[in-house]
Every structure is written in structure tokens, then in C-alpha cells.
């Protein structure tokens, strides 16, 4: 896996981010990884340019929304090359009942948002001991 060469892809822009987040500005869809282990679901979202304080995670009626606000582009000097656009990030997900919604924690580092979503007790796989009769 580490020998693989990275390819650049263009950011996908969202036409209308729903609900309260319809503010001025361009919004892009952040790339995410979602994986689960036996006790929790982890979500990683790439939101470069978003400072820790500028990320918002919102949970309402089972819908998880992540927003990363990015400040305006620097207007110093003249642009000579513009291969990528700058804008905020928005993405939302439906959460299943497997997640204990009250226990979700979030952290941000180097432009990557990490959400840890513990599963509810009954969703955690348990080994059942077999006793010999």
C-alpha cells in the first residue's frame, strides 16, 4: 500500500448545503474514511485549512453534520497558478442506532477531523462462554 503513488483529484463542490449552513461562500465535500472496530465507529475527514476552532460537528435527529470553515484566500500579490480552489467543507451522514449518540467525541489535527463514535452496549459483540455439561 505504501508504494502506491498519490493522484490528485479535484474537489467536489456542493451546490446547496442544507439547512442552517447555507451561508455565503463555496462549500466542498471533504474526503472521509469511516471504519469500525468492535466497540466504536471512527470517522476521519480531510479538511485542510480548517483550524481546530473552525470545525463544527452537529448532531440532530440522528443526522451528523460536519462543517469546516475556511477563511478567505490570501489576497496578497498576484495569482500565477491556481490548481485548487479554497472553500469551506460540509458533509452530513445518517447515524444508525448502533451509535451511542451522547458519547461522540471529536478532535482536529493537521486539517484532519477525527470523530470517535462509541457503539451502544448491546451492539458490542460479546463472546459467550460455552460450558461443558
Amino acid at each position: 500500500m505504501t508504494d502506491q503513488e498519490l493522484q490528485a483529484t479535484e474537489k467536489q463542490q456542493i451546490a446547496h448545503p442544507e439547512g442552517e449552513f447555507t451561508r455565503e461562500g463555496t462549500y466542498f465535500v471533504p474526503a472521509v474514511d469511516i471504519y469500525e472496530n468492535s466497540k466504536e465507529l471512527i470517522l476521519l475527514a480531510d479538511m485542510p485549512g480548517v483550524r481546530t476552532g473552525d470545525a463544527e460537528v452537529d448532531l440532530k435527529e440522528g443526522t451528523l453534520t460536519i462543517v469546516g470553515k475556511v477563511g478567505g484566500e490570501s489576497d496578497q500579490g498576484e495569482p500565477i497558478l491556481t490548481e485548487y480552489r479554497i472553500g469551506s467543507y460540509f458533509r452530513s451522514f445518517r447515524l444508525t442506532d448502533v451509535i451511542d449518540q451522547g458519547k461522540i467525541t471529536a478532535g482536529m489535527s493537521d486539517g484532519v477531523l477525527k470523530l470517535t463514535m462509541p457503539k451502544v452496549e448491546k451492539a458490542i459483540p460479546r463472546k459467550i462462554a460455552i460450558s461443558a455439561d
Partner: protein
Amino acid sequence: MFRWRFGADPTWREIDRLQRSMDDLFNALSGTRKPSLDPLWRGARLFPLLNVRDLDQSYVVTAEIPGMKTEDLEIKIEGDTLMLKGERKPQEVGDEISYHRRERATGTFQRSLTLPGKVDAENVSATYKDGVLTVTLQKEKATLPRQITVKTE
């Protein structure tokens, strides 16, 4: 200069999505991939994408590379060419995990950029903050535009 961007128009994205489902079905049945129709291939370019600004006395190059460790990043300057090289390693995930979605690419990258003018190799600085790499290169003194005063006789 107008650039046509695939994927920027919502209508295209719906069609893209449909195309992708059709492609997946096609691949599942035949095992061959049609590269020209693969949206990822169409948009693929050198990584990372760069923005360059000309600030009178310097050039500022920015790239978005979230989740990197600075020790996995190498920046070199040779004449008027900047070279970025590195590896984006996957996050530690532990064993016995299963992925629901895997969109964040990991791997190696190497990219060179030739700047429009000569730079002072001794005067290059780079910072990495919030996933954005910013390289500031001071232009070589001899190439700086000089104001010419007009004397009246």
C-alpha cells in the same frame, strides 16, 4: 481564462454518480475497467495540487496535504525549481476493523514546480499548519523589478 471543470456542475455530478454505478456494475460483470470513463482517472493529476502567488519580492506556493507528519515531507530547491516529495501514511487503525468508506488517499508523491523567475535558494522558508503547506521563496535580488526615476531637465 475559462476552464471547464467536470464535476463542478450539480447536473454533471448526478450523471457522474449514475455513471459510476453503471461502471461498477460493468466491472463486476466483466472485470475490465474503462479508464476514460472513470471519474477518478479523468480528474487525476500530479499530487499535490499547487497554488502559486507572486508577491513582488517573493513567490508563495501553497498545497493542501492534510494529516502529514513533517518528517515525511521533503522540500528541495534547485535553481528555479521547487521539488516536493513525501509520503502520506495511513492512520493507525488497529486490527479487526472494517471500512465502511475509504476516500482519503494515502501513498507517496513527488512533484516539481519551475517558478517563473530565479529565487534565492538561501532564502526559502516553509510552514505546515492545519494541513496546508506554505513555501515562501524570496526572489533573487538581481531580478527584482527596479523603479526608474524620471528626471526632468
